[in-house]
């Protein structure tokens, strides 16, 4: 029994954090909110060159071929930096989904493009009405009636659905399934899609950890400097306890997220259950952290000019996406209590 990441995994995390501090400071996040696409090709290029975008893509097809456990800390960093890019969709979900469900030809066509940053691939699975980043995608993997389809962007009719998080570009899409778009059906499709849904929830959970931790860090910075009644407000017990409560929530969500990544990577029989525990706890932790952060910032954090809301709104969105805390607890409840 050994619950720790490898030196390589930790080194990758450190490297990505350094990259994001440079390439994705808050102004870059903010710019994505008001840009036409919400997408920054330059940032996407950096993430691709780093190896993040293709991390899970098939090694036989130009990817790095790593697994959920290698990815989880990197997704946490994406959360910490509130990265405005579809890493969750492309890297955490789409690449493994293609690998699991598509034939060699399709993989040979798309995995290299995905890994090299040439093509953005995103997903729309049953259970959600929305496709993230459909506006910049080249290919969208879509579920209908238990079948998985791969639909080129040109064949989609997109309707923009504005999110509270300005860098999350959501769309409802209309499309026609056909023999040409069909990737898989039957058992293969349902197994691959179930795994994809778990990967989406796990990736969201990992990002929520990073978002929450960063909101706490921003707040620590603020309350250490901000003075009222002749003292830094961080010296008041109420402020201390808000932040301590938030930290407890985050730090006890963390090992559930890491364990879920481990179980997914190993194909553990309980992996879906582990993912649900992780997502439930991470969604709740981020919610508590957001509340504490805003309250401790006071009016300053309530202004649009301050960066806090960029993180907070992402946390709200990801908290509900890929299954809310309550929905994931319900799944755990089914396992514990039956049906």
């Amino acid at each position, binding site marked *: 029994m050994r619950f720790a990441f490898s030196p390589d995994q930790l080194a990758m995390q450190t490297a990505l954090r350094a990259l994001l501090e440079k390439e994705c400071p808050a102004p870059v996040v903010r710019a994505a909110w008001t840009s036409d696409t919400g997408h920054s090709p330059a940032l996407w290029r950096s993430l691709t060159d780093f190896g993040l975008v293709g991390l899970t893509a098939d090694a036989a097809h130009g990817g790095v071929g790593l697994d959920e456990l290698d990815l989880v800390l990197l997704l946490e960093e994406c959360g910490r930096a509130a990265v405005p890019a579809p890493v969750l969709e492309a890297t955490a979900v789409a690449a493994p989904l293609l690998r699991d469900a598509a034939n060699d030809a399709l993989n040979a066509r798309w995995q290299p493009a995905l890994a090299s940053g040439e093509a953005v691939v995103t997903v729309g699975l049953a259970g*959600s*009405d*929305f496709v993230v980043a459909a506006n910049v995608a080249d290919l969208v993997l879509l579920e209908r009636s238990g079948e998985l389809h791969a639909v080129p962007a040109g064949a989609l009719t997109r*309707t*923009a*659905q*504005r*999110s*509270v*998080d300005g860098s*999350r570009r*959501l769309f*409802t899409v209309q499309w026609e399934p056909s023999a040409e778009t069909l990737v898989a059906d039957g058992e293969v499709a349902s197994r691959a899609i179930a795994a994809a849904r778990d990967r989406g929830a796990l990736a969201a959970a990992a990002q929520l950890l990073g978002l929450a931790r960063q909101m706490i860090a921003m707040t620590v910075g603020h309350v250490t400097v901000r*003075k*009222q*009644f002749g003292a830094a*407000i961080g010296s*008041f017990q*109420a*402020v201390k306890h808000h932040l301590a409560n938030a930290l407890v929530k985050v730090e006890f969500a963390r090992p559930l997220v890491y364990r879920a990544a481990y179980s997914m990577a190993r194909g553990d029989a309980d992996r879906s259950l582990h993912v649900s525990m992780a997502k439930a706890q991470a969604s709740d932790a981020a919610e508590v952290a957001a*509340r504490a952060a*805003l*309250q401790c910032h*006071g*009016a300053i954090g*309530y*202004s*649009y*000019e301050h960066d806090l*809301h960029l993180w907070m*709104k992402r946390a*709200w*969105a990801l908290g*509900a*996406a890929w299954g*809310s805390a*309550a*929905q994931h607890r319900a799944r755990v409840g089914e396992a514990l209590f039956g049906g």
Partner: protein
Amino acid sequence: MDLSLTPAEEAFRLEARRWLEANVPSTPLPSGDDAEGFALHRVWEKKLFDARWAVVSWPEAYGGRGASLVEWLLFEEEYYRAGAPQRIAQNGIFLLAPTLFEFGTQAQRDRILPRMAAALDVWAQGWSEPGAGSDLAGLTSRAVRDDARGGWRLSGQKTWCTRGAHCDWMFGLFRTDPAADRHRGMTYFLVPLRAPGVTVRAVGRLDGDDGFADVFLDDVFVPDDDVLGGVHKGWEVAMATTSSERGLTLRSPGRFLATAARLVDLGKRFGVDERLRDDVVRAHIDAEAYRLYTQQTVTRVMDGGSIGAESSLNKVFWSELDVRMHATALEILGERAELVDDAPAAVDLGAWMKGHQFALAGPIYAGTNEIQKNVIAERVLGLPRR
């Protein structure tokens, strides 16, 4: 105890309901927090005023109906039940006007109140400063005597002035005796925002609307007529009305009753399991509790009693309730909760996410809940200060 309404009260309620049914816009006005929406809301306020619904509890001479507090509560219930527009004039009507009634001169009242009621002048509050939020007594904006012109010259910066970018006037505290200690030597001024030396900068709110403003004052002249309640008496004047505002008029129960009713409706439309249903029921009960609590307070005030530090209980309760109600709504909406503005798939035009963001301000403004809980502990329960 008699919780029924008198025939006169019933008649008042019905008259309000009928007028609102006939006059509330069928599609919601755009947010009153940007210039265009603000102008439309000014029209609405004028319409309310013309029908004498703008300030029901004021004397008729100023455009009111001399309504009792009970009637005021009824009007508020009807107003929010009808889904009527936000009140852009509220900071004047609910925060400044009570102070004018208590401390203003007759001339001030006659000059200011009718124009306030008709929204010819819309007022912003100017309490907070960059260095003085929860700690209001730490404010540093100052007023220097100008004997020659018979008034004062104001300088400094006020911040978080709600809708300040669109308002006509601002009320606020300024330091007139820099040598006095923190809570003294302040004066309550009425400041024309179009005066020379005033610069107003819109500040975006959490939801993206320009709901705030920074107001910069550089040697702005204010005549003696616009001092409210006496020179160096600003703190006492401001505090004397804070409790009753926080305890009664700042947030009437009607608002939360309407939100709770909409939440029940949302639960029915989207379906709720026993867990979420329990949360909806809590909201309904809490809103009822707040209504009844307010009825207790109104009875006490009508009996000649006053509202003291208990007002802090009030503020903590409704602000936390508002956050819980909106959080429950977002849970009911699931992934659609994040849709806002013009998103075609948004439920109720994204009103719940918008309301959620507004609700999150509740525990912060009008004195953070952390400060209110200190007040409850120290001044209601009698615990020692540090």
